[in-house]
């Protein structure tokens, strides 16, 4: 028994048709690409269930399973690896089939793209079970219908050379003709015939025909070009291609552009003959001047001298396959080559002379394998550098569009040249020069050659007498290296004129000859001698008053009898030695020459002997000033310098400035008594003056001031003990003229004495100052002061004067006008301040705040007329301790601490009703402030507006303020009860204001502050101050309020809170 695996095996017969329930669509024929659907239905017509049922379909050649099309009872069967289990060898397991149960299997195929026409496809299904052997369905046979398609894009003809079709074909070359026949249909084409005639202008290459690469003529039994319409393929399967290929040779010659067209016709048994598009190949034929037979040369190529001619020879040979039309050649000479007129020849024949010669020459038409020779000459111009390459370019043009460029060159041989006629040294100016004079010579250099002279160096032969040699090129000084000057390059046909300047060395012997020679050396020209220039020296000694002079060693004003040192400096500025140098001095009679150093003295003359040129001598003279000189007559020294072979030279006069003046600055003025004098005593003043200077004083005036404290004693003035007449009752010393001394010589002394009485009205202890003034020569003034003289008086009691029988008023004098102040008591060590101004008690806020005395402020209960809302906060011991500790912890500075006081002392009950509103506000207040309490523990935390209040809190506060009713809460019990009271009307007003007040401002806190306890004075005081502080801030914005909360100090308020806490803790 065949198993399901065995059925449908290749080569096995189909199963017997047991079930005729296989339905296939289409039923009879199919075409490539068509979908074939098969439905197999079977029923368990037995009485027992069929278990392990499997169904299998065959997959005939030419059909392909359509993926996903397998279904069992309309339910898709999962494919495995792109194939349905229905096509597997074991078939698809579909489970059990109960008796009477019917199952339906669907599957679809796709017809393959290529299927031979007339071929048969057989479809069959089989079903098996554990209990049943495979049962075959009816076999459905389908016949395929298809045909070949030879006329398509892949069927074509082509003709090309080895280089492809685009390059065209050359005459005489070969081309391949390829005819491709492709079967794009679904079935084979039979007896495929190709008609491919040999293209015109070509000839068939024998035995070159190939079909799919194999020789074809052997099958034809004749030459391919002689067989018309051969069968190239007996059968051409679908999607197959047959290629017919043969070679042809292009005829030679052919005109350029000739088209070679390949044509073909195709036919088969199934396909009627049709013509395919022809292919063509264009013939390319051209003239050719590219080989070596076409050339351009220059003669000679080397050692071309400037001024000579070069010959350019051009040969144009057409090696191409067609005639070159309009052949022309264009020459391009370099700048240094000038074409020679009349030298142009074509094939030896000269061209016609033209005035405006163009360098483009028409050579006419040159046939294939023909040539033309063209000759031209050019003259090499001078100057030109040696070794210069002269490139000659030529361009050969021909039609159509052909050209070739040539380039050849000739190398120049060129030299510089320096003739003696143009290169020499010429002296400038006369031949006689003096030492230190400047000599000048001109060097002429001229390059007569055709090439530049490089590395030219000028060598100067310098005489030792020449110094400071400089070489100039025009105004530019050239750098000298020893005796040489680098001239660099001297271009051809250029001249350089150098100027040599030198200074004659000084000193230098008279009548000496000076020579300046020169030569030039260049790399190309060698050494060129330039000759020399000559001078003769004339030299003499010379002195001048500028460099030879007398000079004071110390520039000062000298006094009589002083020794003045004078330097004598002589300098020979000449160019020869000065012999027998002598300096004759003429000194004023107020002085005399006392000493000479550095020269030999001969009376009033100084002998210096020999001084070399440029040399100097020095001598030091000592001039003694005589005592008889006067200020108005300075001492002068005149001198005359003489030497051999020179004219006398008068030196500058030396003037010695002298001075002699009197001096009375040293003198004494003393009194007798010297230190203390009693009132009414006589005092004698003695003035000693002396002319301590070195000159006489013509007039000396001595005077003193008249003092009220001293009374002059008439006739008491003496000069050197000679009495002097008074002027009135006064001493002449106190007069305007004073005492006048005349012609006081140096060292002369004068003693002036006078007497005065101390005024008895002076007070004891007063000081007397006496000063004498000495003026002389009208411009000098000296003062001589006497030591201080103190007045001494004795106390005298009025009416108790001895010797007077009566009292005498008024004689007591001013000394008794005021008594001495009494000294303070030794025990009074401190100054007693005046009593402090009493300060009103109400003017110091601090004392009132800190006072625990009753103030009555803020306690609404004091106002009996207003409705009062009483508040109560009850603290047991634990709560009180916690509250106080909380308040001590919540000291964050500013008003913030007091906001926590609002939380701490917020009442438990207020008014007569509405505990819920109070509880809501308490809760919100606690939550807000607890969070703020936590946040403020963050370092440097800055309070944000949201930390203070939100709209819910605000609404709760408003509701509370509106709901508080006047009255007192029920009496509570507790350890500590804090009571407060507030005006209900004020709370309503605050509630109204809160409706419009912005959030996070001070107003709600000001309202809540009214609920603080105020029973005790401290509580009332704190409540009042906190309300005041918050009310003051009610108008500010949130920023200012937060600033007050965190930054503004409230020390008084803090102290008040401390007092409250302390008091509450005490009460507890």
């Amino acid at each position: 028994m065949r198993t399901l695996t065995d059925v449908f095996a290749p080569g096995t017969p189909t199963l017997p048709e047991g079930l005729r329930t296989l339905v296939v669509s289409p039923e009879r024929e199919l075409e490539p690409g068509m979908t074939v659907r098969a439905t197999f239905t079977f029923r368990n017509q037995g009485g027992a269930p069929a278990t392990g049922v499997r169904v299998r379909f065959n997959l005939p050649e030419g059909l392909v399973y359509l993926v996903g099309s397998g279904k069992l009872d309309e339910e898709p069967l999962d494919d495995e690896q792109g194939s349905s289990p229905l096509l597997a060898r074991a078939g698809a397991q579909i489970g059990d089939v109960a008796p009477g149960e019917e199952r339906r299997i669907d599957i679809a195929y796709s017809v393959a793209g290529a299927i031979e026409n007339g071929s048969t496809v057989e479809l069959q299904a089989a079903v098996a079970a554990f209990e049943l052997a495979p049962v075959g369905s009816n076999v459905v046979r389908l016949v395929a219908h298809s045909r070949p398609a030879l006329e398509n894009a892949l069927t074509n003809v082509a003709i090309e050379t080895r280089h492809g079709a685009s390059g065209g074909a050359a005459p005489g070359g070969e081309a391949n003709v390829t005819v491709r026949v492709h079967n794009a249909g679904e079935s084979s084409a039979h007896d495929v015939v190709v008609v491919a005639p040999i293209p015109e202008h070509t000839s068939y290459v024998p035995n070159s025909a190939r079909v799919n690469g194999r020789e074809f003529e052997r099958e034809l039994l004749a030459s391919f070009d002689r067989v018309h319409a051969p069968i190239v393929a007996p059968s051409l399967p679908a999607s197959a291609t047959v290629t017919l290929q043969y070679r042809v040779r292009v005829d030679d010659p052919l005109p350029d552009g000739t088209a070679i067209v390949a044509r073909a016709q195709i036919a088969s048994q199934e396909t009627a003959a049709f013509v395919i598009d022809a292919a063509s190949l264009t013939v390319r034929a051209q003239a050719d001047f590219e080989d070596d037979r076409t050339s351009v040369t220059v003669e000679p190529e080397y050692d071309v001298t400037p001024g000579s001619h070069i010959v350019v020879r051009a040969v144009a040979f057409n090696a191409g396959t067609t005639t070159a039309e309009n052949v022309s050649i264009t020459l391009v000479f370099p700048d240094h080559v000038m074409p020679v007129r009349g030298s142009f020849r074509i094939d030896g024949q000269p061209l016609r002379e033209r005035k405006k010669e163009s360098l483009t020459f028409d050579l006419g038409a040159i046939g294939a394998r023909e040539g033309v020779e063209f000759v031209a000459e050019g003259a090499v111009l001078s100057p030109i550098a040696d070794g210069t390459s002269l490139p000659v370019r030529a361009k050969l043009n021909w039609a159509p569009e052909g050209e070739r460029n040539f380039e050849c060159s000739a190398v120049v041989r060129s030299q510089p040249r320096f003739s003696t006629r143009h290169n020499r040294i010429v002296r400038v100016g006369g031949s006689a020069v003096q030492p230190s004079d400047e000599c000048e010579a001109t060097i002429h250099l001229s390059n007569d050659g055709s090439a530049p002279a490089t590395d030219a160096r000028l060598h100067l032969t310098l005489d030792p007498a020449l110094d400071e040699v400089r070489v100039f090129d025009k105004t530019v000084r050239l750098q000298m290296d020893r005796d040489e000057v680098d001239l660099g390059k001297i271009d051809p046909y250029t001249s350089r004129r150098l100027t040599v300047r030198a200074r004659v060395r000084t000193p230098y012997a008279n009548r000496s000859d000076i020579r300046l020679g020169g030569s030039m050396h260049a790399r190309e020209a060698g050494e060129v001698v330039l000759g020399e220039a000559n001078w003769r020296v004339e030299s003499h000694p010379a002195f001048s008053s500028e460099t030879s002079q007398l000079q004071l060693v110390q520039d000062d004003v000298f006094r009589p009898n002083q020794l003045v040192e004078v330097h004598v400096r002589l300098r020979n500025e000449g160019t020869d030695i000065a012999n027998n140098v002598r300096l004759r001095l003429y000194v004023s009679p107020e002085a005399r020459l006392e000493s000479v150093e550095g020269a030999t003295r001969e009376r009033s003359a100084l002998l210096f002997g020999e001084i070399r040129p440029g040399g100097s001598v020095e001598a030091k003279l000592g001039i003694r000033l005589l005592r008889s000189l006067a200020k108005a007559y300075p001492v002068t020294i005149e001198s005359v310098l003489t030497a051999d072979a020179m004219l006398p030279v008068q030196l500058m006069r030396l003037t010695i400035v002298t001075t002699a003046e009197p001096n009375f600055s040293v003198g004494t003025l003393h009194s007798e008594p010297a230190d203390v004098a009693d009132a009414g005593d006589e005092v004698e003043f003695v003035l000693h003056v002396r002319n301590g200077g070195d000159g006489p004083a013509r007039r000396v005036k001595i005077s003193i001031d008249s003092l009220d404290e001293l009374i002059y004693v008439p006739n008491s003035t003496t000069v050197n003990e000679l009495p002097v007449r008074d002027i009135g009752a006064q001493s002449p010393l106190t007069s305007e003229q004073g005492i006048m001394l005349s012609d006081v010589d140096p060292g002369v002394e004068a003693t002036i004495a006078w007497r005065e009485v101390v005024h008895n009205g002076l007070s004891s202890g007063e000081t007397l100052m006496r000063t004498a003034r000495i003026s002389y020569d009208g411009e000098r003034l000296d003062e001589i002061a006497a030591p201080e003289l103190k007045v001494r008086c004795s106390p005298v009691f009025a009416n108790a004067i001895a010797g007077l029988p009566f009292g005498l008023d008024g004689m007591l004098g001013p000394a008794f006008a005021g008594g001495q102040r009494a000294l303070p008591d030794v025990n009074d060590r401190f100054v007693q301040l005046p009593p402090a101004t009493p300060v009103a008690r109400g003017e110091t806020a601090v004392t009132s705040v800190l006072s625990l005395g009753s103030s009555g402020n803020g306690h609404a209960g004091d106002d009996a007329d207003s409705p009062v809302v009483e508040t109560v906060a009850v603290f047991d011991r634990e709560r009180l301790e916690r509250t106080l500790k909380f308040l001590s912890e919540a000291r964050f500075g500013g008003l913030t601490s007091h906001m926590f006081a609002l939380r701490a002392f917020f009442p438990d009950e207020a008014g007569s009703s509405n505990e819920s509103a109070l509880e809501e506000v308490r809760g919100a207040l606690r939550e807000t402030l607890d969070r703020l309490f936590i946040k403020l523990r963050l370092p440097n935390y800055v309070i944000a507006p949201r930390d203070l209040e939100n709209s819910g809190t605000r609404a709760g506060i408003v509701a509370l303020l509106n709901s508080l009713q006047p009255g007192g809460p029920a009496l509570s019990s507790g350890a500590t009860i804090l009571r407060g009271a507030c005006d209900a009307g004020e709370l309503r007003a605050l509630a109204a204001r809160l409706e419009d007040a912005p959030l996070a401002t001070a107003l709600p806190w000001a309202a809540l502050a009214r609920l603080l306890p105020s029973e005790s004075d401290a509580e009332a005081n704190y409540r009042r101050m906190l309300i005041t502080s918050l009310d003051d801030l009610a108008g500010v914005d949130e920023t200012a309020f937060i600033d007050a909360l965190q930054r503004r100090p409230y020390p008084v308020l803090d102290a008040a809170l401390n007092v409250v806490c302390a008091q509450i803790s005490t009460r507890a």
Partner: protein
Amino acid sequence: MNAIVIGLLIVVAIAVCVGAYAWLSPERKTVEEPEPPPNEPWKPDTAWTAQAGDEFATLSEAARCDLVFAVADLHDERADGLLVHALDDPSEPVALAAAHVLERRGAADRVRAHVKRHPGARAERIEETLSLLQ
């Protein structure tokens, strides 16, 4: 005799029943309370904010405090977990805020448990401050 036997049998049966009841009674089972986790040194947790969202991974001290107070309005287990983790915040005010919020949410026992598990000066300060805010 029969009556006595019957009576004895009844007594025996009652005794058996009582014994069986006593044997099978759930009260017999000893209640084993879970042992609290051992005390351990407190370690700061800076990543607890990430539980609220990646965008909250890096917040300043004040911002974490605000986050704690914002979470206070959320009543779910996730918020509770977040607040418990916030107890380990390296900032003591932030941890205090979390503890305060947990207490207000009725989860004071979790705060106490945390304080007991991580005893120390920090825990004492938090506990004392919480007591001030009662």
